[in-house]
Each structure stands twice: as C-alpha cells, then as structure tokens.
C-alpha cells in the first residue's frame, strides 16, 4: 500500500516538481527580501548568487569539502550583497523607480561576463555529498533522491530561519519596522541605513543557498545557471505578492509542481507557459499578488 503510494506517478511528479519548485521559491524569496527592505527589484539576483556560488564551490578544486565550500558561498554571498547595497544601490534610493532596476541590469551583465571570462562557459559539476539516484520502493523508483531531499530540506530550513528571524527576534522586528516605516524607525533610534544593508546581506546569503543547491543539478555550475530561475522566480514573487515571503515559496512550489504535472499528463511544450498564464490570471484578479494584504495606494 505505502509502496504503491511512494511509486505512484502523480506522487512522483509532485515530489520531482517540488524539488524544482523550491529553487524557484528560493529565488523568489531573495527578490521579496530585497523588495521588502528597500523597494528595489533586484534584477541581478541570479548572477549575484551564481557569482558567489562559483567563489565557494571552486574551492572544492583546492580540496575543500562540500560543506566548507557551501559555507564560503553563503558567507561571501552575505558580504557581497551587503557591499553591493552600500556601494551601488544606496545612491539610488528616492530616485526614479527605473534607476535601481537598470543598475542591477548592469550588475547582471557585468557579473555574467566576468564569470565567463574567469571560469569559462563550460559548466562545472561540483561533487555532491548525496546520491542523485532515487530511493527505491520494492524495486521501483520513488520521486525523490537523497540529493533532491537535501535540496528541498535546505530550502525549507532557510525559509524557516528567515521566518524565525523576522517574526520572533527583535532584530527581525527592527528590520520590518525600518522597511515599512523608515521615518518612524529613525525617530525611535533604529539605524535604518544599516538595517537595509543587513536586509540585502540576508537576501544574498539566501541567494547563495539557491546557487549551491542548483549547482548540484545536472546543469551544473555555469554563468547563466540562474537566468531561467530568475525569470520563474520573479514571476513566482509577483504571483505571491512581492511583500510576502511565504507567498514566494508557495507560488514557487506551485509553479514547479504544475509544470511537472503538465510535462507528464499533457504536453511538455505547454509547461513553459504555465508560469506566464498563472501570472496573467493572478494579476488580472489581484493586481498586487495573492498573498499581499490590500494596502492603500502609495502616492
């Protein structure tokens, strides 16, 4: 009975789709974190994560083990993202909405070009400490492998950490306050500027986790590895609502699972369109995304 469920086609699709979906969700979460903190749409989220993943994972060539390499990626991800905020994003607050977008497009272009100059476009395949062979149940493959279980687990763990940080710590409270009401926060003696930098840093670290997780997939580590994920992640974030971390994760997973179900039961040619159709439908019904609470229009 249990074996039947574990190797059931739909269950397998849901499991496989979730493994894809959490990565979309992680990228979406980064976008939401940055948006909530600073009202900037970080177009370079993908390449920034890619870049720091390279920095960490290439340490495996120098005999670092996977966990050390991953930790380096995450740490560098935090520092790099925070520095980016200080150096190139800070001058752009309170400027036209399009300026930070364009700066981040510049960052996108620059980082991908530097990465392919330094590490070439030939993908690298970091050795994962987990097997990618699916668990078997009575001789039939299930939908998950140790690797995809790790990927889902890592994503959920990060998500939980972020939730705890924002909802149950005083730092999280300050972070939320400085994002939502910077003027009031200043009056209360909160150092808003630093907290905005911290918000970017956290998003950078989460992005690095997404980068490390995706570099273990068959596509490997390549300069463009997160480009498609960025588009899907952006769509997921818009569907969920750019102010909602939970919405980002949920819509990421939904997109991943629905795509996989269409691959299996309909025609994979239509799967690419799912995210787009979902976005259009959702924005028609709720222009501010599903999970965002109705707020008054900012003028």
């Amino acid at each position, binding site marked *: 009975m249990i074996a039947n469920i574990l190797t059931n*086609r739909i269950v*397998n*699709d849901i499991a*496989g*789709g979730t493994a*894809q979906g959490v990565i979309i969700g992680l990228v979406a979460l980064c976008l939401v974190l940055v948006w909530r903190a600073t009202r900037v749409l970080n177009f370079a989220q993908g390449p920034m994560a890619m870049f720091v993943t390279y920095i960490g994972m290439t340490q495996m060539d120098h005999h670092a083990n996977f966990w050390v390499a991953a930790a380096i990626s995450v740490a560098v991800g935090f520092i790099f993202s925070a520095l980016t905020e200080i150096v190139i994003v800070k001058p752009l607050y309170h400027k036209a909405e399009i300026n930070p977008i364009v700066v981040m497009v510049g960052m*996108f*272009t620059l980082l*991908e*070009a530097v990465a*392919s100059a330094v590490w*070439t*476009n*030939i*993908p690298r*395949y970091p050795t994962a400490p987990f097997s*990618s*062979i*699916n668990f*078997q149940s009575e001789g039939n*493959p299930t939908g998950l*492998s140790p690797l995809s279980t790790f990927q889902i687990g890592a994503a959920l763990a990060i998500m939980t950490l972020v939730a705890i940080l924002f909802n149950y710590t005083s730092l999280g409270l300050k972070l939320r306050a400085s994002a939502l009401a910077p003027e009031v926060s200043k009056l209360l003696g909160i150092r808003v500027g630093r907290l905005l930098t911290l918000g970017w840093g956290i998003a950078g670290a989460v992005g690095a986790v997404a980068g490390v997780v995706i570099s273990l*997939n*068959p*596509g490997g580590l*390549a300069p*463009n590895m997160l*480009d*498609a994920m960025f*588009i*899907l992640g952006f769509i997921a974030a818009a569907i969920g609502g750019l102010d909602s971390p939970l919405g980002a994760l949920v819509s990421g997973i939904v997109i*991943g699972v629905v*795509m*996989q179900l269409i*691959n*299996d039961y309909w025609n*994979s*040619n239509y*799967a*690419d369109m799912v995210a787009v159709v979902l976005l259009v439908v959702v924005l028609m019904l709720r222009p501010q995304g599903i999970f965002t609470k109705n707020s008054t229009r900012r003028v």
Partner: protein
Amino acid sequence: MKHMNMRRRLAALSATTLTLGLVASGASVLSAGASGTDGVNTSSKTISIGGTFPLSGLASAGFQDVAKAALATFDYVNSHGQVNGWSVDYKVLDDCYNLGVCGAGKNTDAQTQALVNTPVFATVGSLGTATQQGEISYLKTNNTPQLFVSSGAHYWNDPTSNPNLFGFQTNYLAEGKIFGTYISSKFKGKKVGFLGQNDDFGQDGLQGLKNGGVTPATADQLTYNSTDVVFNQGTFRTSMAKLQSDKVAVVVLDTIPQATKLALDAAKSLGFKPQFIISGVGSDPQTVNDVNEKNAITFTFFNATNSTSNKASAWNAWASKVLTAESGKTVNGVKLATFTSKSILSGNQLYGVAIAAGFIEALNKVTANGGTPTRSNFVSALTSNTLSTPAIVPLQYSSTNHQGLTGGYLVKVTATGVSTGATKAVNTTVYSVNPTTQALTTSKLTNAAVPSEFK
C-alpha cells in the same frame, strides 16, 4: 525632471543628426575599409571570407571550437604553402547564437550584415539552423554565397531557389535512417523509444528512423523544447520515466548536448539503463561531459577520436598537427584554443578543420593554372569536384544536390569529460544515404590520404 525648451531640444536634435550624418559619410571611422568588389584582392592574392559563431554566451561551450579550429586551419595553410599563392582571410564574428544578454551588436543579423558589407567573398561554416535560415534571404539578395552551413537540417539543399546555398554535414534524415538500419539489425525485436527536439532536428530524425525500419510506439515518441534545458528540466525526468515504465530497451536521443546530459542523468536517477543511441549533434563526449554517456552509441562523419586515432587516420593526424602548431595564437582578433600533440581531438574541432579543408580544396581547384576566384567559378568548382576533407565520406555536390556529406559511421563513447572524451568505432561499415532518393548504401572504412596541398 525639467524639460528643455523646444528650441534647445530641436537644436540638440539636429546637431546629433548632423554629426551622425557627417561622421558616417566621411572616411569610415569605425569600420575596416573594403577590399576588392567581391572580397577577392587580386594584388595581394587574398580572399576574404567570414562566418558567424557563438564565441560568448550559453552556446559557446563546444561550438566555439568549430570556429577556432577552422580559423587555425586557414592560418596554418596561409603560412604553410598557401593555396596556389592565395591566402584566405577568415573573419570569425561572434553572434552569441542570438541567445542571452550578449550586447546589442552580437547577433546573427548584425554580424552577417557586417560581413556582407565588408565585403566577404562568401560566408563559410556559419553555425546554427535557425540563425542561418534567417540569413538565406538577405545573403541571396546581396549575392553572397552561403557555404557549408554548420547544421544538420535539410533546408540547405535547394539549388533551384538558392543556387549559392550549400550545406555541409550529413542531415538528420540520413542519420536517423542509419540509426534505424543499425537498430533493426542489431537490436531486432527490442522495444525502441525516442526523445527528440521539437523542431526539424527531432522531426527529421524520427522520420529517418522510420525510413530505416524502426517506428517507436506512439507513446514512446517524446519531444522537448530547446528552451526546456533551462526553463523546464523536469520534462527529461518524466520522459525517461515514461520510457522506463514502457520497458523500452533502446532509446534514441535527438538532443542538443545540454539536453543529452539532462536525459542521461534523469535515466540514471531512475535506475533506467537502456542502450542509448545519440545524434552526432548532441553526443560529443567532450561537450556533454557526463560519465553516464559511456557506452552510448553515436554517429559521426569523422574518424573516431581517441588517443590512438591519429595513427589510424592520416586526416586526424594532420588536424592534430595544425591545432598544435596554432595553439594559443591570436588570429583576426580571436584567441585560439590551447592544444598539444597529446590532446584528444573533439568532434567540434574536426568539424572546424573539415569546413576549412573543404574551402581550401575548392579554392585549390579554382586557382590551379593561375585562375582567379570568382563567385561563379567557385560555385561551379564546388558542384563539379569531389573534395577531400577529414570526413570519412567524400564532400560531393552537384548542380542538383547541395547537401554535402551524405553519410558516416557509428562509434561508441569510451571516455567522457572536457579534453578527455573519446570514441571508438563500432565497426568499419560506412553508411551513405542519398539525399534525394533516401537510398542507403554501405562501404568499408578506409584511411584516406591527406592531399599534397595540406602541408
């Protein structure tokens, strides 16, 4: 934002327009000057040709080796005896395969237009099906031959409407038929599955398979979109799971290298171990770089590439010599790859050497006895001669057939990885498929000699 008043705006505008006009109409400041009227410079005895390839971006891994090997070959021949006193100036331009964020100047249209206006004698070896299809009309109108298009589509063989368009490699229909013929003799009665790209590549491949006597069950004929390799990797998992649950024993992949890798990895994670038969376009073990590809059977129109193939094939040995001599040089602004006499050739490198060799052979015919190349005598030299290249089948065109190579043989992947990937011949049967009648003939592999013009 403050706005300039009308007069100032207008002044600025006309100033910009004027400057632009004057700059452009003066001596061409930003572009190189023209040489001759059709890319042929009779005083310096130089013939200028060009090609567009992805040198940066997503598609450049693997494909850039084609351009660099061709460039190396032309440069080597220029400095080792030339072609009856003529040298070839090969301009390789980066078109980024029209993919990704690559800068507004790097696309096939812009780079082809730049070549045509230089002008070049012809485009030679430009890479890609969709990218090159987009240039047929433009090149035809501007009377520039489009030679040796690097694509296995069958569109290049249409001499009636496009007399100056020439294909190069064995097309997907022929490759499919060869696979079908091999499968029906070697894996008789085994269940066959198919995964192909959802365009002419997959469609022609499947048709060829059917022509060769193998028709997979409808449920086992699967497709993917070329964009799925980045947007929808999950489709490879569901495809392999379907073939696995249908108990398929032989899987034919008409997939690009990234898709090949995704399919092989998905099969591995499902514990699905069929015999893989992979299109030559998506199987180069140095590009796919996946240990699971070992023992897959693939198709090639070159000699197998491994550590001893230079001894078995005179052409492979010559290609290695050229790439070693040109290793790391910069030619026409392109830095060539590092290559030592111990390196194993990749399929892409042999491909580049082959297109250059084909051009040099035709040029050799035209310029023998002091002839001067023109577009028309070059095209007639192509259609009236059999050209010797590293390919194991002759490069032969006629006035009614512009296909190019028509066959090849089967090899098995013996090692994988960047610069270590290698293949070994399955047997010595060379297949050939007539592009018009689709009739299949076989012959035995021979070690063709390298003509004396290749020093």
